[in-house]
Each structure stands twice: as structure tokens, then as C-alpha cells.
């Protein structure tokens, strides 16, 4: 099987569970029937992202109280494959502009995620707080890291997702909608990223 053929991913190569999952996603792409509740349509999203706005799935972000403009931008990028991640590209495929708007508005109304209630490591928090200050995360993302407009809420985001995202921005594996994060991450050393993610995941309590 050549790589080119593999990229086309013929359905027969999919494990059956993948087909089931994709079928669930196709609910999203279906024409919106008037009676269909938005909550039903986003159920497949919430299976991974968490029904209460809080994700309990590794490397899958919490969506609760995310800013609607940021959510809309990401859904658009997934639909257009400008941000490449197969599951999300499939999920957003065929969604209309109005669908993208309704889903982002829905996401924005979910409750904000809560920081983990573990015994926080004070030394790491201290290092993390200094990094937040030095790199001015609290400027665009606001002092409580709740975000604004196109700048996302990052407070109490999953730590593993933050680590992955920061590394992807720094390496430019994720280019972002505009250039801001690629630029912001340049002065951040790779070994600083875990502490940065640690404190942001525990914000604002850790502030």
C-alpha cells in the first residue's frame, strides 16, 4: 500500500469502531432539523471534551466558557483543514457557517473548567507564575487567563493539552490563525513549558 493510497483512507481499512465514531460525527453534518436539539448534535463532541465543560480525556482540551470567537476560529480552521487533526477535521467536515457559529456559542455557555484539586507543588507554581509574568501571558489572555474575543481562555485548561499546544506553537507544528503565539513562544525554552502549563492549569487559584 503506497503512502498516497493510505492517505485516502478507504473505508474498508477503518476498524469498525472508527466507522461507528465517524457515523456519530456525521450527525453534525446532517441538515439541522428544526426539532433537533443542539445539545444532541454536540453530544459526540462532549463525549471526549466533557459534558460539563471539563475534559477528562488525555490531551483533549476542556471547552467550558471558551470564548466564542476563538472557538469559531478553531472550528473553521478544522473544517478548512488549515489546522490538521483527523478526528476534528472529520467532525467539522460539512458543517455550515451557521453550524460553526451555533457550536461555538454553545461551547461558550458551558461552565468553566476547574483546576485540579491536587496538592500543588509550591516551587513549580512559583516558577510558573514568574514565567507567566515574563512572557506576558496575562496581557492578551487577561489577568485571570479567561481570554477575550479571539484570545482563548487558558485558565484551568488540561495540563497535558497545554504542554502539547505550547510545544506545537513553538515548533510551528501548529501555526495558529495569526502569528501571535508562534512569536510569543520563541523566547520560551522547552524546559520551561512544563512549569508554564503546570501553573496555567491551576489558574486562577494559583495566581
Amino acid at each position: 500500500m503506497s503512502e498516497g493510497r493510505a492517505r485516502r483512507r478507504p473505508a474498508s481499512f477503518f476498524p469498525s469502531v472508527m466507522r461507528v465514531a465517524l457515523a456519530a460525527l456525521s450527525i453534525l453534518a446532517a441538515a439541522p432539523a428544526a426539532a433537533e436539539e443542539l445539545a444532541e448534535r454536540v453530544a459526540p463532541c462532549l463525549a471526549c471534551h466533557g459534558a460539563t465543560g471539563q475534559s477528562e480525556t488525555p490531551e483533549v482540551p476542556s471547552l467550558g466558557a471558551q470564548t466564542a470567537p476563538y472557538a469559531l476560529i478553531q472550528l473553521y480552521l478544522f473544517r478548512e483543514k488549515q489546522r490538521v487533526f483527523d478526528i476534528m477535521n472529520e467532525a467539522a467536515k460539512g458543517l455550515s457557517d451557521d453550524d460553526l457559529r451555533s457550536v461555538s456559542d454553545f461551547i461558550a455557555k458551558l461552565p468553566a473548567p476547574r483546576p485540579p484539586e491536587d496538592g500543588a507543588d509550591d516551587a513549580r507554581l512559583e516558577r510558573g507564575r514568574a514565567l507567566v509574568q515574563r512572557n506576558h501571558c496575562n496581557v492578551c489572555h487577561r489577568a485571570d487567563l479567561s481570554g477575550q474575543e479571539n484570545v482563548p481562555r487558558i485558565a484551568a485548561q488540561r495540563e497535558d493539552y497545554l504542554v502539547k499546544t505550547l510545544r506545537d506553537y513553538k515548533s510551528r507544528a501548529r501555526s495558529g490563525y495569526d502569528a501571535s503565539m508562534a512569536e510569543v513562544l520563541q523566547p520560551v525554552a522547552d524546559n520551561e513549558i512544563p512549569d508554564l502549563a503546570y501553573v496555567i492549569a491551576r489558574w486562577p487559584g494559583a495566581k
Partner: protein
Amino acid sequence: MKASCRSFVLAGTVGLLLSAGPVAAQQSPASPAPAAKTDAPGAMVNPNATINSVLKDAPQNPAAQKLAPVAPPPIPTAADKLPVTKLQAPKDFKIEVFASGMANARSLRIGDKGTVFVGSRLVDKVYAITDRNGKREAKPLVTGLYRPNGLAYHKGTLYIAELSQISKIDDVENHLNDSPKPQVIYSDLPKDEPHGWKFLTVGPDERLYFNIGAPCNICMPPETNAQLRSIKLDGSDPQVVARGIRQVVGMDWSPVTKQLYFTENQRDWLSEDIPQDKLNRLLHPGKDNFGFPYCHQGDIPDPEFGWGHSCDEFTKPVALLGPHSAPLGMRFYTGHMFPAEYRNQIFIARHGSWNKTKKIGGDIVVATLNKDGTVKSVKPFITGFIANNNYLGRPADLEFMKDGSMLISDDFNGAVYRVTYAPSRSSPQVSEKR
């Protein structure tokens, strides 16, 4: 719920192994960029670059914390929701929607047959607006591009400047429907994201001119950056045209002197009211240095990099265009529709500020020139893109149609407007009496 997600993610992982494709690239930072894009978003970083964050010098201050770059929505505004009735123009000028539905519409160029080409920065498209038997149609001409902000049209060929390469489509107006693949002519360019998007223009010497921005808000840029560069139309013979330039998103050639004029966006976070963005004129090609990072707006030494330098070492701007106002596209008016007083003057689209509490810009201004090419005055022409300190739209570029009317792109709403002039009989323009 949790169980179904685990199996779902697992399934996704198996799918990934089979596809061995783009997602794997995203998960492994060292891998090349997704195949959908024509260019890796900066796989190579100049190791010598002194890159600082856009937020360098941002104060820890509650008012400053409210400021962030404004990103337009990725979905264009519906034609009937465009703010065209909120815009104000001088008497007897009319503004209407020319075309809509083009997310992030930026640079404008017009072909010999009247096709309007529209670049973008945040989406992957160059659009073409065509007019067939009175029916206007806007649709993507090329997709899968990476920050295709710069466009130039010359003798049938469309040139496209992406973040780190320049390509062309020959005989473009005869290939509007068969998805032409641009042919790369030049790619010896840095891949920096900050100020990596380009403006493109063809000079009277039939060379392509473009900017390579500073890869930062304020920093000591590498040799390859903070400059204007030119190449021949086939991509050969690169030459540095000017240095010390932070970022340019608009250039045009004087129809009188053939000199190059360009807008330049100055640094952020120095203060609410300084420095002002600039209108520059290239006087000595290959020699001029416009001061970045040592000197801003022609007379303010940088608090960090300015030590040991004087602003007098650098070429001065011909006009100051307001702090953080973000002047982008600019064109000389050579048409005949507008009153004579506008002929050979410069129209400039001010995109509008983000690094300022009370927004300014969000308008089209006109710079009136003296005979020696210096600027006599800068006055508002079209206003109203800002209301209650919010953007209703943001003008990014402008271009003139053959009939002398003006097109304005609005990258916030994904639309293009047209400005026409028709003097009312009761009040002939003063300029026409002269």
C-alpha cells in the same frame, strides 16, 4: 461517556497509523507541515535571529492587559449585514458593496480584463471577482496557500507572495476556472511568522518589490529581515532595496517622479501615543535605512536600541500617520472619475489600532503632496469603520478600477466596497471650476 471517548480516541489513533499522514505531523513537532499547505509554516528558524516576543515591553498594567491583536472572524459577513451605510465619504461620493463572502479579503489587484484579485492573510485563499454580463461572482482562485497576502499583476501574470515564497500564474485571466497551480519563482526567504506576510508590487523597472518584516515587535533583526527586496520577474537577481524597515503592508510608485512610497507600521508598547506610523519615500535605492530598530517615527530614539545612534542617521518619513493606526494599502490616484484635486495624490487604508485603548484609524485618508514629493497634508477621506471603540470593519487595501472608481477591501468582514463619484448638479465641485 468516558468509555465511548476512550474507544473513539483509540480508533482515531489506529486510523492515524493507517493514514501516516497530517495528524502524525501535528503530533510530532519535528515533522514537516501538513501536505495541504504549499509551505511549511516555518520549519526552519534562523538560529541567529534575536527574536523577542510581540509582548516584549508590554507593561503589567490593567489597561494594557485589555489590549490584544484583533483577529477578524474567519467567516465573512453576509452582504446585507455589511456596514456600508455607516461609512462616511465626502459630498457626492457614494459607497456600495462590490463583492462579499471572501473571508479575510486583503490585497487587491485588477487584471487587464477587469478581474479583481483578492489576497488574504489568515485563510489559505486568493479570490477572483469576475463580472459576467452584469453578474458579479466572487470565488477562490487558489487555495492551500500559506498567508498569501501579497499580490501583483503585470502583463497578464498574477504574482502571489506567501509567507516565504513568491509564485506566479501566467495568463491568469484565461485560467480563472481551471484551478491553476502557482509556479514558484523565489523562495530564498525567512520563514518567520511575525510580520512574515508580504506586500508585492511591480516597479517601473519591471522588477517585483516586496517587504521582509522584522520578526518581532522590537528586536535587532537578522540581516535577512527588516528590509525591502526586489527580484526580476523570473525570480532571479535578488537585491536589497532598503533597510531599517519594521513592516510594510502597502507600497506604490509615484506616477510623477516614479519614486517608491510605502507605509510602515511602527513598534508597539512604547506608549499609547507614540510612535506614529509612517509614510516613507525611497530616495536612494539600495542605500536608504529607515531607522528600525534604532529610531521610530523619524525622531524618537528607541529606549533600548537607540543608544549610540541619532535619528539623523536615517531617512526621515514624509508623513506621520498616527500612533498604532496601522496604515496598510496605499495607491496613487491616476484616474479621472474623482475631482482633479485628488489626481496623483495618495490614498491610504488605515487598518486601525489594537495597541491603543481608544482605537484610531479604521479609515481611508488622502495624503496631498507638494511638487517636490513631500507631503502637504493628510486628511480623512472615508471614515466610520470604528464605532463606540469597536470595529465595524477594517480597511486593508485599496485599488482603482479602470473607470477611476475606488475599491476598498475589508478583511474584518471579508468584503470589497466600491467608491464612485458623481457631482450633483446643484453643487459643482470647486475644483472643477478652476
